[in-house]
């Protein structure tokens, strides 16, 4: 599958050929949702965050510049930021509960767990899952995915390779 990262607008001085927001929603909604499912490991959370992502994108739509990257990469950055905010607030909530519940740990059940693959995915860290989502599912190329993750292209490639190897090992172990 060809990596979706080409800038499809053309220069005409400073004017920019921007797609409409509605067309971007239609094209990228499933991709963003899929990314968030993999990143959070929880479909319910991913649904909320998907809505939040597009609401934020709606508010900041004029800041999107097609010359700097694709709409998919831009939305993934917003989605990642929303997910990290969610993780932070979850961490604060867990700390408060631990304090009042006298140390009884709360384990968040990941919904990715029905099939062998999904069980294996649940074993990966969010960082590993998100690189798999960006590169394999969303078809972002190395440099674009690295920019979304805020790491170098080499680190991104290494992380992907490690994640896929771990997945493969876990799946073969599970089948055995």
């Amino acid at each position, binding site marked *: *599958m060809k990596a979706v990262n080409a800038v499809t607008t053309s220069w005409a001085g*400073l*004017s*920019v050929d921007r797609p*409409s*927001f*509605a067309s971007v*929603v239609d094209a990228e*909604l*499933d991709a*963003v*949702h*899929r990314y968030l*499912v*993999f990143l959070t490991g929880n479909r319910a959370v991913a*649904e909320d965050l*998907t*809505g939040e992502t*597009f*609401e934020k994108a*709606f*508010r900041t*739509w*004029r*800041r999107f*510049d097609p010359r*700097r990257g694709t709409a998919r990469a831009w939305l993934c950055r917003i989605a990642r930021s929303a997910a*990290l905010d969610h*993780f*932070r607030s979850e*961490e604060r909530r867990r700390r408060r509960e631990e304090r009042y519940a006298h140390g009884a740990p709360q384990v968040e059940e990941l919904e990715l767990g029905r099939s062998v*693959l*999904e069980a294996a*995915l649940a074993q990966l*860290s*969010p*960082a590993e899952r*998100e690189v*798999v989502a960006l*590169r*394999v*599912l969303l078809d972002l190329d*190395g440099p674009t995915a690295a920019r979304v993750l*805020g790491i170098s*292209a*080499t680190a991104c*490639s*290494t992380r*992907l*390779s490690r994640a*896929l190897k771990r*997945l*493969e090992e876990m*799946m073969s172990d599970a089948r055995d």
Partner: protein
Amino acid sequence: MPATEIDFEREFEELVRELRAVPAAAPDSVRQRVRALGEPAPRRSLPVLPWRRSLLVLAPACALALVAAAVVHGVLNSGNNSTRAVVAGEASSGSAGAKRDTHFGALTTPVPGALRSPFVPPDPGRHQDYQAWMTLRVKDLDALTDQTNEAMRVAQSFGGYVVSLQQSTRSGQPGEADLTLRIPVARVEAALVRLSDLGTVLARQVSIVDLEQTLRQQRTRILRLKLFIARATEQLKGNLPADVRLRLQLQLQAVRQDLAAATRSNKSTLNRAALSTVSLTLTTQKTATPVEKSGGGRFERAARDAGSFLAGAGAVILFLLIVLSPVIVLVAACVLGLRTYRRREERRLLAT
């Protein structure tokens, strides 16, 4: 493909296929929620440039604006220097022994046609010490002698007199005559105008020192001394013990001497106020004073002024950079620290 890129499609073909088959389409509820947002209102704004590109545009634009301002400054100021050249020469010439105290309005701008006096006039309602210095160039040694005599006649015609005259006329050398004239203050302006016609004016300078306060203090002192004398004289008419009488008589004597000195001082101040001092120098030297470097053509002056403006602007920018550099360093350190903290936090959140 770069060396760092992995061909995961080939290496993990089956796994990739399975991953892509995981159902993760957005449910209808999410789809409806997002579609309900509609289309953002189009906002007419300039395209947002990346900060690097903005810097590439802004930096040359600011530099160009600065150069343009310097050029305008240079062109506007280059037209006034003909006056300054005359002004600059004044300090180096003048009569010997005269105190140049440019206490008040050293020069007025020479008016084309000299239809009115270029000299600062004295204030008729106040006592002032008015002093003027003037340097004139005359044609040759003969003209020097003639004009020196004429200057003395002018002083006398205005009710003044010549205090001193020094003239040197040696063949083959520039001639010079230095005159010190006293002219009644009320007529000094007219006298100066008349004197300036004796040759080409190379330099002129005026000093005005107000004497009102000095005179007021002198009058007060004289009054106090007279009052004491009157009281002491009255006391001496009465019956006093011998020692008291003697002491009073001695005091009276001292005070009378003080009164005489104060009166003399007051008279001298009034004389100073009544008569102005004019120091006139007549010379045959061709270039009496070196022309300041502010001469030259208009373009050169404009370029020089523009250069000074840019140098001034550069100094201000450098000063601001020096003053603000600790703040800039602090802000940069904070930004870097914050970025590092956020990255660490992200890694921690995504590692679990």
